[in-house]
């Protein structure tokens, strides 16, 4: 190992006047920043290991710990900034691919904050959402072109066959986080929250843990390129099956769960031997083109006897609109699009920060394209990747999505501070670690309460925004871009988003 040329990113201080040397910090920090020194009865600090996760600060009973970004800067240089220099140093020391986690943290890919919402004044009334009915129920699945009803007013008979749908009481779902990327306590917390909110949790690929079976009606199972834990019972168990083609944080590349994370528990659900690498190939090897996608969609439908919707998830990329159009024709019921700000448990930094397009652009262009082709009604659209608030949910639906996927927000609700160290497997908040000694920090009963609270809060806010517009049902917001205006956007950006400038 070469000597590191990097200075610590954070400075860690303990106020010795208040510190009682209770060692809570030693126990709480999973990155071994703190150690107890018997000689002198004191806490030693190794600040180069600190990731700024705040676990120690929150759990220090005397609030004696403070962490501040290392004020030492390199000579000011707009091009060669601290992050760039550190990345080069890291690679010079290891020769590897820079690995990171969570979503893209760069500032310049956000359009939500440049979209403004409308409200009713005079010409139609706003609605009081707390006292008048306000409906967020959403059905996801494909819709038929013709709807034939036998001519009988008394008891109408529908002749059009029905395709399966997912019923959501609020248009928010938990996006795919596999067992392995997060632990079972996290998955169970989300499952409980999904059940109590009438929504769904996507468990990613990696099998269905026995503990989750009781929540299966609110679980979406995933088929990805590794086919880990994918079998007949697994496909039958879920409320829907998602084929994962790509992920917003790392479009076009596969995944890799290192052998040390394949514990006995993971081995059992993934059905591979413990300790071996779990490699998810870049492509699905039975899908090399659009007609092959159709083949996998139908293989799953045949296997599940057409009883549940099939979702196809793609990363938001430059030609998403054309791809989406193909997905509609593949027979899929729902398309999920994951924007470039979407999170990941581990991804090469270079992919996370450079590949793909923002979800706002992708949804706008896909919705427009499918409308132009006259097929938008055949499929439902789920938007994911970078949804941070109820207003983001609201805006993405106005841009054309039917519902959205969130995951980072749900993790934050459970304790995550977005320190971007998921890939190390040491998550101090007990979320993205397989280490049972740390993962017990998540108590599904308590954590699910926090997540449920978040969903409830967002749901209330969405109703408020709808009421303000004089709309009392979420379907009247879908694709209703007239309710949006852009600010600080170029003409071209607004054209793609299909919105007009504020004030026009």
């Amino acid at each position, binding site marked *: 190992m070469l000597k590191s040329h990097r200075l610590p990113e954070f400075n860690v201080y303990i106020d010795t006047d208040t510190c009682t040397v209770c060692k809570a910090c030693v126990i709480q920090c999973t990155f071994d920043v703190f150690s107890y020194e018997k000689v002198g009865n004191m806490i030693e600090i190794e600040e180069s290991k600190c990731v700024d996760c705040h676990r120690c600060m929150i759990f220090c009973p005397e609030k004696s710990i403070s962490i501040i970004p290392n004020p030492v800067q390199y000579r000011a240089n707009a091009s060669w900034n601290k992050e760039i220099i550190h990345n080069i140093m890291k690679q010079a020391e290891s020769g590897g691919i820079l690995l990171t986690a969570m979503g893209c943290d760069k500032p310049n890919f956000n359009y939500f904050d440049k979209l403004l919402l409308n409200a009713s004044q005079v010409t139609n009334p706003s609605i009081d959402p707390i006292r008048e009915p306000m409906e967020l129920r959403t059905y996801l699945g494909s819709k038929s072109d013709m709807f034939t009803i036998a001519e009988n007013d008394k008891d109408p008979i529908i002749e059009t066959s029905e395709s399966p749908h997912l019923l959501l009481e609020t248009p928010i779902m938990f996006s795919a986080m596999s067992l392995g990327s997060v632990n079972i306590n996290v998955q169970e917390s989300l499952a409980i929250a999904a059940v109590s909110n009438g929504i769904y949790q996507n468990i990613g690929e990696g099998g269905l843990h026995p503990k989750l079976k009781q929540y299966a009606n609110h679980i979406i199972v995933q088929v990805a390129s590794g086919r880990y834990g994918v079998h007949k019972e697994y496909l039958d168990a879920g409320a829907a099956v998602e084929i994962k083609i790509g992920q917003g944080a790392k479009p076009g590349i596969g995944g890799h769960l*290192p052998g040390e994370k394949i514990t006995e528990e993971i081995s059992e659900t993934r059905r*591979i031997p413990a300790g071996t*690498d779990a490699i998810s190939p870049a492509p699905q090897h*039975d899908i090399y083109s659009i007609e092959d996608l159709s*083949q996998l969609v139908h293989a799953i439908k045949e296997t599940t006897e057409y009883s549940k919707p099939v979702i196809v998830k793609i990363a938001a990329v430059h030609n998403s609109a054309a791809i989406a159009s193909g997905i509609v024709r593949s027979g899929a019921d729902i398309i999920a699009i994951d924007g470039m700000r979407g999170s990941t448990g581990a991804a090469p930094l270079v992919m996370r920060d450079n590949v793909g397009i923002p979800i706002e652009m992708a949804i706008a262009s896909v919705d427009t394209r499918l409308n132009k082709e006259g097929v938008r009604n055949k499929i439902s659209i789920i938007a994911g990747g970078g949804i941070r608030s109820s207003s983001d949910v609201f805006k993405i639906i106005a841009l054309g999505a039917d519902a959205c996927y969130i995951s980072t927000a749900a993790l934050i609700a459970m304790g995550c501070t977005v320190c971007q160290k998921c890939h190390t497997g040491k998550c101090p908040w007990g979320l993205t670690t397989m280490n049972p000694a740390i993962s017990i920090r998540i108590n599904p009963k308590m954590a699910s309460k926090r997540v449920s609270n978040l969903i409830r809060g967002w749901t209330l806010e969405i109703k408020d925004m709808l009421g303000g517009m004089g709309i009392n049902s979420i379907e009247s917001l879908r694709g209703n871009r007239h309710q949006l205006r852009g600010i600080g956007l170029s003409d071209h950006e607004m054209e793609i988003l299909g919105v007009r400038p504020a004030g026009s």
Partner: protein
Amino acid sequence: MEPKNNRSKFMIDAKNLTTRKLNEKVRKAVRDGNKQIAIHNVMGQRYIAAGIQGLIEIDITGIPGNDLGVFMDGPKVVVHGNGQDVIGNTMNAGEIIIHGDVGDITGMSARGGKIYIQGNAGYRTGVHLKEYHGLRPIIVIGGTAQDFLGEYMAGGLILMLGLNLSDGIHNADYVGTGMHGGTIILRGDVRGMGREVEVHQLDQEDNRLVEQAVLEYSKHFGCRADEVLGSKFKKLIPISTRPYGNLYSY
């Protein structure tokens, strides 16, 4: 084409049936308690036996379409004719016996069961084959296969006999590329291998497996088992179960 002995079998004529219709009939026959099903006049219908569980025998005459036996869990499927692409995709258990050649990607991601191919296989046969506890998939190829045999292989066994080779060299490159588990056993040489594998001699356990598999092959298709077993085999296994351990910088 009518299959011969059809007295005890539930017969399905696939002529002019759509894929969906045919599979509905097959599933219904299974639900009705039929243990032996014969489908004739199959002409490209896909997903036959998809996700079917239990000890069912399905006899197919004609050419079944892609994804034959996808997610299958137990049945024995016999094809009197060639097969197409992605046979036994992600299958759990059961047997698929092909009296002929097959297309690409046979046995993708299977974690159990047996696939016997009388003749040749296409590209990426056995890609990402896995194994788990008692489940260990096996693919036996009577003839030869094309490139990327056993790519990403994480478990299981691929046995390639090369019965139709004149020079003993399989025209296959990148064999076992990305392999990090399982075993490939070859009769004859290949044109090239992935850098993640190394060649070994067969041990006693390997020899036992090969003998068992060749006898079974002979039972299905008929061949001089003793002659085949008398020839030289070699096995390819991964150098490491962690081939990409030092790829990343944290």
